[in-house]
């Protein structure tokens, strides 16, 4: 029972980090109609930047977190300028190829700038463990869950309750109509890219402390985000979070019951079943199409 509770806690912590990646993926998908395959590499970049910042500025993780988010937001804007704006009138497949190129540039850039060695990012609120009711709770796991929850709720509040968020959503739903209403469409797209990249940066810092950061990890993360988004519902923000938690649950709880190989096979079985029985995903399809 204790083991199961421990696994559930690990699943929640891992799922919270995956949710940040998947949310960024969906935000860009909704804003541009294209899949950003560089999202996982932005997570990796966030991890490396934080590991670099802590050497330059030995500050607590909580202070470095916004720095990492701003830095990756700037990287996201650079990716937007290079990979999306010049191609925004081309088919979505053109954009996703260009985002793959951006991902490779980020990967190789990380190797050149920081070296090929894996790195550890600083903990948000200090390291160590808390023992409670037979469970071992890593402080970083708790921080990860709390920070991810705050960011997810904050992002939801921004989109649902603010004028800016409504303009971003209007742009995502119908760019032509939004422009006709006087909404600065390109600025809204840029803001969405920056927000998505900032979430990736936070994910990179949070994941990098417990699970390290390597230059090539972006590819695996984007695959997990893609699976989470398909399961949760293409374009659905709630679905992305639910899908991410489900992916993490398979990687932890189900893997402990069967094996990793079997758990991943089962996860993809669930994915295929959802595609067959409920193609819109668990939370329905809000916008966009599968690239």
């Amino acid at each position, binding site marked *: 029972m204790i*083991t199961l509770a*421990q696994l559930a806690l690990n699943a929640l912590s891992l799922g919270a980090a995956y949710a940040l990646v998947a949310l960024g993926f969906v935000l860009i998908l909704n804003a541009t109609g294209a899949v950003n395959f560089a999202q996982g590499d932005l997570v990796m970049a966030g991890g490396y930047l934080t590991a670099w910042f802590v050497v330059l500025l030995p500050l607590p993780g909580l202070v470095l977190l916004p720095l990492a988010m701003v830095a990756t937001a700037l990287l996201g804007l650079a990716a937007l300028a290079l990979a999306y704006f010049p191609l925004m009138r081309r088919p979505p497949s053109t954009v996703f190829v260009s985002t793959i190129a951006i991902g490779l540039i980020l990967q190789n850039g990380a*190797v050149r700038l920081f*070296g090929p*060695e*894996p790195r550890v990012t600083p903990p948000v609120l200090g390291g160590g463990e808390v023992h409670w009711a037979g469970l071992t709770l890593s402080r970083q796991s708790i921080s990860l869950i709390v920070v991810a929850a705050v960011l997810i709720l904050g992002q939801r509040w921004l989109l649902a309750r603010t004028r800016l968020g409504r303009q971003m959503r209007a742009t995502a739903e119908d760019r032509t109509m939004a422009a006709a209403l006087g909404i600065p469409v390109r600025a809204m797209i840029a803001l969405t890219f920056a927000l998505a990249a900032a979430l990736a940066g936070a994910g990179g810092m949070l994941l990098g402390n417990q*699970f390290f950061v390597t230059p090539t990890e972006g590819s695996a993360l984007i695959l997990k985000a893609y699976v989470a988004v398909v399961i949760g519902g293409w374009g659905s923000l709630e679905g992305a979070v639910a899908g991410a938690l489900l992916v993490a649950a398979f*990687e932890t709880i189900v893997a402990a019951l069967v094996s*990793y190989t079997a758990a991943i096979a089962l996860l993809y079985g669930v994915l295929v079943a959802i595609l067959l029985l409920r193609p819109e995903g668990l939370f329905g399809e809000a916008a966009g199409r599968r690239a």
Partner: protein
Amino acid sequence: MRTRVSLLLALLCFVAPRFTAAQDVRIPVLVPLTGFLALEGTSQKNGAVLALEHPPEGVTPHWEVEDTQTAPELAVNALEKALEQPAVAVVASMLGSQILAMLPVGAEHKVPLITISGTAQVTEQGNAYVFRFFPSDAVVKVAQARYVVEELKKKRPAIIYQTTVYGQGGRTVLDAVFKKLNVVPVFEEGVDITVNDMLPVLTRALAAQPDVLVLQLHASSTALLIRQAAGMDPHLPIVAGSAIHQPSTAALLEPEELDGVCAESASSPISGGSPEVDKFVADYRAEFNTEPDAYALAQYDGTEMVLNAVKAGATAAEAVRDALAAQKYQGLAMTYYSDGHGNMAHSAIILCYDGKTRVPKVVQRYDNIDPQM
């Protein structure tokens, strides 16, 4: 004008003998510097370059470094391009799929390929132009299993391996060696390289009541598993694959998390052992501002053996091949000699961490390992 020509001829007469006497040779370095093997490939490059920068007296090597990334065709293209000019040897990618694709090209041009790939098939192709300076799994896994059974006296190993070629290949050899040692693993499971949480596999392994954890995992997975195992009860001894010997992997963990962790490796340069190894470590740190690992030292030794063969008179590729095939060479990590298939490394060590520092101590050495034990 005539005076100028005479001066030029005189200058050439003065320079030419020195140029040839210095034994100018070309040794291209074609290794993976980006992609998933960038860490190990960079060590391979660094080891080769350090040797080339400090050649034996009378030898002047020339080299260029080419990133082969991870695709076999990129490595083949790089080799074809490199061999458009004469070369006495090529430092060739340690990535199994790349070196396997490079082998026919090396043989076609009759140029020896110097590598540190651990993939067993590399020296099983009947190719006379490949020389491997890193012990294959058939060597290091014997050391790992023998240490578990003969020194730690453990009889119930749980093997956790990566589901990659590296992981599955090592697991197969471990199984065979444990069988010869009359030990049956109580648990064996593969984990994907993208797995972040190692608690599930540890939970399943502990349920089988092992007395030791035997790992065949890549660097990040090894560090993740060791970190999570450190906080578990019972605290089992761990005998890992060579990944944890890399200083950059050990740096991911606190010294106390490494307490009781042992691993197989070809060498551990930072552990010292001789003034020559200490000098290698100092030179490496000064040149690359990072810590050397066994891959760097193995490639350094391999490249040094080529340069020493050149110094001894092997100035053409075929002569270098003959020298590598026939001679023994006392390197910094071990004594190298070919077994007739191009396997040059036949020794392995076991190193352990004491929980106080990230510098491991060599606790056991196995020389002249018979892969058919």
